């Protein structure tokens, strides 16, 4: 019963490419999040969205943008990929009373920029 789906498990992109990471949730949650996970640094919030077309910057938004045109879908965009964006990217969703139960995470997208 997968609830948060990230479209790609592994991606390899070239420096300077525009990269799209897609995330879909089927739980009708208001909130969706993008984190990056790096060894020794834990999870750092890039952007989050609390409603359709609404977004807020997280702790490390530089070099990233997001799009949320529909409630179930939250996209992370790397405008011009760089090698320091090589990382594991995690999408999560949650909302309303569900927020008290923590958030549901996707299985992650491991992005390598060469």
């Amino acid at each position, binding site marked *: 019963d997968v609830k948060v789906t990230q479209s790609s498990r592994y991606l390899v992109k070239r420096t300077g490419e525009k990269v799209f990471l897609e995330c879909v949730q089927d739980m009708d949650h208001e909130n969706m999040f993008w984190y990056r996970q790096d060894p020794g640094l834990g999870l750092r919030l890039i952007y989050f969205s609390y409603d359709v077309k609404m977004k807020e910057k997280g702790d490390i938004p530089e070099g990233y943008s997001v799009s949320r045109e529909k409630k179930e879908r939250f996209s992370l965009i790397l405008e011009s990929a760089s090698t320091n964006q090589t990382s594991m990217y995690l999408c999560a969703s949650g909302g309303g009373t569900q927020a*008290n139960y923590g958030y549901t995470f996707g299985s992650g997208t491991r992005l390598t920029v060469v």
Partner: protein
Amino acid sequence: AQRVTQPEKLLSVFKGAPVELKCNYSYSGSPELFWYVQYSRQRLQLLLRHISRESIKGFTADLNKGETSFHLKKPFAQEEDSAMYYCALRSGGSEKLVFGKGTKLTVNP
């Protein structure tokens, strides 16, 4: 600013020994604290939340507001407990989860 500190990057114990993973937080209001776990090659999943005062897989965690801590404990560790553990904080009025840097627990046979 909200901050979560997990002082140990690595923790190694033997099977059957007690284990405690430390978590301290910095937040002036009333926080909501969570523990997440990530087993090898699996997605991050919620283990515990302080508001429920539950025990999951033998793990418990108590919020100590005086010491601003939310340590995760288990009296008898099992090999299947080996995983990466993250402590997380959600502040009142915000939907953001702030994570610590994680502790990798290894339970040796």
